[in-house]
């Protein structure tokens, strides 16, 4: 059953079409990631689902009920903002109890039990008496999550909750977030501009740009079967390489573009002459910047290979690089849309 549905939802701010006709359906227990660059409308979409913005057009359903005209407090949602938005004048206990008390239907004892449960999940019982300013970034994030979970909402909305953590903490927080989401089975919508987070967390990823959904699919689908050139270049670091052939753009991922000499299997390869420019060493991997000389054109291309790869590349020299034919993707050079494979 779909827990959250948006039907052709639109939000225009004067001339800006922040969200421009988005139809989505999020399943029970699913971890859905909305991924897009800043200005793509992903946060506005989440605020529409939360009820913090009124849609210009379209419908929103939560748990089968049309909530389009309901204020946030009448929608059964929990939300964590990027800033965590902890109430600075309240203790951790009062912060987490706020949504419980606001509903007005729980006794003092029930509130206490719910706070205990919500803090138990995230292991922060020892922080209950503290004020937010006495907490570290990681602790604040847990308190904000506890508060969002305390009333056991139908949907959990997370707006870039990891981006205020430092890089090391972010990896462990990501891992923890996913494990506890699986354990509780709570339907979760997670907004981020970070593709690593999106790939690592999402059951499905919604890639947005310019207020529109470009593609919805599993991390594998959006990465390996990108629907258009935007998705193909936005995902991956660096994004997909393209070579123009007639009306087509032929695309392949940097890690699929390797020196001919290192290729084991020789079946169905496309071989391209590659003039090596700069080599960038990134620790585990290295990036090789250069140009492919194809049908009289020079196209800037990046290859990515393991640093373990000892094959020596001399800057300025031309080497034969190869891509497996099955890994080539084809896009219309006008619209950027994916098209069926053609013979190359």
């Amino acid at each position: 059953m779909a827990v959250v549905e948006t039907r052709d939802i639109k939000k225009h701010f004067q001339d800006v079409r922040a969200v421009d006709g988005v139809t989505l359906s999020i399943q029970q227990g699913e971890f859905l990631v909305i991924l897009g660059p800043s200005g793509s409308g992903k946060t506005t979409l989440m605020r529409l689902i939360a009820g913090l913005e009124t849609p210009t057009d379209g419908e929103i359903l939560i748990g089968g009920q049309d909530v389009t005209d309901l204020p946030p407090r009448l929608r059964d949602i929990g939300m964590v903002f990027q800033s965590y938005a902890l109430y600075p004048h309240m203790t951790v206990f009062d912060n987490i109890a706020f949504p419980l008390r606001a509903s007005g239907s729980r006794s003092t004892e029930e509130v206490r039990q719910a706070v205990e449960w919500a803090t138990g999940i995230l292991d922060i019982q020892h922080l209950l008496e503290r004020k937010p300013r006495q907490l570290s970034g990681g602790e604040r994030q847990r308190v904000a999550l506890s508060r969002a979970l305390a009333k056991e909402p139908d949907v959990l909305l997370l707006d870039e909750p990891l981006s205020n953590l430092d890089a090391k903490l972010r990896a462990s927080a990501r891992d923890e977030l996913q494990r506890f989401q699986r354990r509780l089975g709570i339907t979760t919508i997670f907004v981020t501009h970070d593709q690593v987070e999106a790939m690592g967390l999402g059951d499905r990823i919604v890639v947005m740009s310019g207020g529109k959904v470009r593609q919805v699919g599993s991390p594998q689908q959006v990465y390996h079967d990108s629907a258009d050139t935007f998705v193909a270049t936005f995902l991956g670091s660096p994004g997909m390489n393209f070579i123009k052939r007639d009306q087509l753009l032929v695309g392949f991922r940097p890690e699929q573009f390797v020196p001919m000499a290192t290729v084991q299997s020789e079946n169905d390869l496309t071989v391209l002459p590659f003039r090596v420019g700069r080599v960038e060493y990134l620790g585990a991997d290295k990036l090789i910047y250069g140009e492919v000389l194809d049908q009289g054109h020079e196209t800037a291309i990046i290859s990515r290979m393991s640093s373990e790869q000892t094959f020596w590349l001399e800057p300025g020299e031309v080497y034969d690089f190869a891509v497996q034919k099955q890994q080539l993707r084809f896009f219309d050079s006008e619209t950027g849309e994916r098209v069926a494979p053609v013979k190359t």
Partner: protein
Amino acid sequence: MAVVDTPAEKRSGFFTGLADREEILAPAFLAPAVAYIILLVGVPVTLAIAFSVTDVTVGDTSLDFVGLANFRAVFQTPQFRRALVNSVVFTIAAQVIVIILANVLAVILAEDFRGKWLARFLIILPWATPISLGTIGWLWMLDSTLSPLDWVMVQLGLLGPGSLFGPSDHMNFLGKEFLAMASVTLVHIWRVLPLATVILVAGLTSIPNDLIDQAKVDGGSFMRILFRIKLPLILPIMAIALLFGIVFTFTDMTVVYVLTRGGPVYYTQVLPVWSFYTGINGGALAQGAAIALFLFPVLLAVAILMLQMARRMEVN
């Protein structure tokens, strides 16, 4: 070997040299402020304290020490005691109402609506008016025979023979004890409300939007968000507005002087006006100073509280 100019030698003009020396520059910049405080605050306060323990009058300017005799003398007059009570009552009554009204106005003005700029302009207007002119306006509004308020009440059937407020066609706002006190309080409220409102609007708009959005998602109704989130968060700013209001009302002389001159009889007398009457009009400088010094403890307490507030806000 070539001679190399150091930068200091290059620009060693007389004034530039002085400006580079902090031990000269710092006192030079502080001097005007120090002079201002000594001449306009230090000297008058010292003089007032000195006068209050002597027998100085306009006629006899020699300072002969008399101890606390002046304080005892002024305290024994009913005018003084009424003025002391009135100063406190007017201040408290006005500030309680100002804080409530300012909160209501600030919550309205912090929202977006059509004509907001006009509402803001009208609310700030009393603060931009010279206090004496504004009070003269109120004097006409509350006049014993020509009051437009009387006329409006008569037209509404609230005043006149057989109506709620009695048979006379005039309320005589400033001629009856309770109405006169209420009128003075009202004008103080009218005067201080704009400042309090502006301070509270600034406080409300400084609350991060995320906090309010979070409270909405957390199920907070308008009232719950107002009383549990917004008001507690602007409490320190509210305290500042309150302290400013106390100072302005407690030390104000214009409103009572223009509106009632302390009357009817001495029922609306306040300390600053009574001090002026006794010390300047009556010529009893020493007693006038003693009356004025009764303002001192309250103002000192307010000043200390304000400084503490300011420091706490810096820490946060």
